[in-house]
C-alpha cells in the first residue's frame, strides 16, 4: 500500500516533469548570428516580404505611417482575439532594448526575452525557416524604424488557451523548420519556396487548420475559412486555381486579378509589400505556385 503510493507519486512526478519539459520555452538554436554583417537595405526587403507592417502597423496607417509598428490590430480566431503588440524601436513599449539573439528567438522560435511562449498568431511557425543572414538584416533594418510609446494591450483569450505553457505542446506538434515542398528543381523554385513558406507565411491563411489550430499540411495552400469574418481564403492549388504564372506575378505587382478585379482586405497589404520587391521575387512565387500543379 505504502509502496504503491510511492510508486504512484513517483510516476506523477515523472509525468509532471515530462510535462514541464515539453511545455518549456526552447529558444532558437541559432549559430553565431553576431558574426554576420548586417545589410540594412536587404533587411527592408526581408521586412516587406515578411509582411511585418501588415499586422504591426496601426490599422489605418498608410504610406510612411506603415513603418510605425505601434500594434493594436485585432486578430480574431477560434481561440479568442489576439491584440498585436508594439514592436517599434521604443525601448520600453517596443523592442528597442532587445538583443539580436532575443529577436531571433522571438521570430524563429516564438520565445520572448523573458522565456515565455508567444501565441502562434505570430507566424513564427513559418519564420522558423528564415535564414540567419535574413534575421540579422531584418533586425538591423527594424532598429532604424521610428519609436512609438503606445503600450501593448493584453490579448483577449479565454481558458484554457490563456495558459501560455500549453503553447509548448502546440510547438512540439506543429513547429519545425522542414520545408513543406521538399523538392525544388531550380534556384527560382527554391527562392519561391522560401518566399511562400518562410517569409511570406502564405500558408498561415491559405492552408486549413485542424482542431488544435495547427496547419493541415496535407491540404497545403488549398484554401481555408477566413478567420477574420465573412468569405473564404482562396485555394491556390490545382485544379481549383488556374491562373498563369504571368497572372500571379502581375497580381502581386498591381493587385489586379486576371479579370481585372482588384485585391482587397489582407491581400491588398500583401500586394503593397510584394509590389516593392524585385520582379524576380514575384516571378519566383508564381513559379512555386504553378509547380504545385504538377504534384
Amino acid at each position, binding site marked *: 500500500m505504502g509502496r504503491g503510493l510511492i510508486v504512484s507519486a513517483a510516476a506523477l512526478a515523472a509525468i509532471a516533469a515530462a510535462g514541464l519539459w515539453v511545455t518549456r520555452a526552447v529558444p532558437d538554436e541559432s549559430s553565431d548570428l553576431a558574426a554576420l554583417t548586417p545589410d540594412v537595405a536587404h533587411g527592408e526587403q526581408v521586412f516587406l516580404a515578411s509582411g511585418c507592417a501588415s499586422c504591426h502597423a496601426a490599422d489605418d496607417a498608410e504610406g510612411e505611417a506603415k513603418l510605425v509598428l505601434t500594434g493594436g490590430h485585432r486578430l480574431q480566431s477560434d481561440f479568442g482575439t489576439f491584440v498585436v503588440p508594439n514592436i517599434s524601436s521604443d525601448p520600453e513599449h517596443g523592442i528597442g532594448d532587445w538583443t539580436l539573439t532575443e529577436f531571433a528567438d522571438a521570430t524563429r522560435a516564438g520565445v520572448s526575452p523573458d522565456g515565455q511562449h508567444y501565441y502562434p498568431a505570430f507566424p513564427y511557425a513559418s519564420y522558423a525557416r528564415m535564414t540567419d543572414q535574413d534575421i540579422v538584416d531584418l533586425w538591423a533594418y527594424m532598429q532604424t524604424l521610428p519609436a512609438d510609446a503606445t503600450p501593448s494591450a493584453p490579448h483577449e483569450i479565454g481558458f484554457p488557451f490563456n495558459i501560455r505553457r500549453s503553447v509548448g505542446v502546440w510547438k512540439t506538434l506543429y513547429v519545425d523548420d522542414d520545408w513543406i515542398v521538399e523538392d525544388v528543381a531550380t534556384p527560382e523554385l527554391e527562392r519561391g519556396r522560401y518566399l511562400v513558406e518562410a517569409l511570406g507565411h502564405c500558408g498561415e491563411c491559405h492552408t486549413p487548420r485542424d482542431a488544435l489550430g495547427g496547419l493541415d499540411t496535407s491540404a497545403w495552400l488549398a484554401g481555408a475559412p477566413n478567420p477574420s469574418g465573412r468569405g473564404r481564403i482562396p485555394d491556390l492549388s490545382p485544379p481549383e486555381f488556374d491562373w498563369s504564372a504571368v497572372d500571379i506575378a502581375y497580381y502581386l505587382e498591381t493587385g489586379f486579378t486576371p479579370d*481585372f478585379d482588384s485585391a482587397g482586405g489582407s491581400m491588398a497589404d500583401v500586394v503593397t509589400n510584394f509590389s516593392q520587391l524585385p520582379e524576380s521575387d514575384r516571378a519566383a512565387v508564381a513559379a512555386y505556385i504553378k509547380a504545385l500543379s504538377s504534384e
Partner: protein
Amino acid sequence: MKHVKTMVALAAMVSGTAVYAQDDFSGQLKARQGQFRIMAINLGILGSMAKGEMEYSAKAAQNAADSLVAVSMVHQPPLWPEGSDGMAIDGTRAEASIWDENEDFLSKWADFGTAAQAMQASAGDGQDALGPLMGQVGGTCKACHDNHRAPAN
C-alpha cells in the same frame, strides 16, 4: 377642402410606397457595380497590353484611359445612399465604413481619378509607360478595397 385633403393623403401614400419600393437600392447597386465593370473592362485592355498579351495600340490605350477618367468623374454620393451596405442588403460587398468614414472613402475615389488622369496623359506614349501607370491605378483600387469592401465568399 375635404377632397384636397384626400388627395394629399393619397399622394403621400403613393410617394411613401414609391420610397418603400426603392429600399432594395437595386438601381444604385446596378449603377455602381456597372461603373466598376466599365473600369475592369478598360483596365483589362490596358493591362493586357502592359503584360504583352495584347499588341499595343496607342489609340486603343488612349480610348481605354479616357473611359477610366470618364468613370472617375461620376459624382459618387448619389450612388451610395445610407443603408445600402452589405450588412443591410444583399448583393453588395460595400462595408459600413463607406458611410462611417465617408471622407476617407471619397478621397480614395478622388485618388483613383488622379491616377486615371496620369494614365490618360501617357497611355498613348507606348507600351513601356503602361506598367507603372497600371501600378498606380491598381494601388488606388486596393487602397479603397482594403478598407471599404468585404471579402468575396
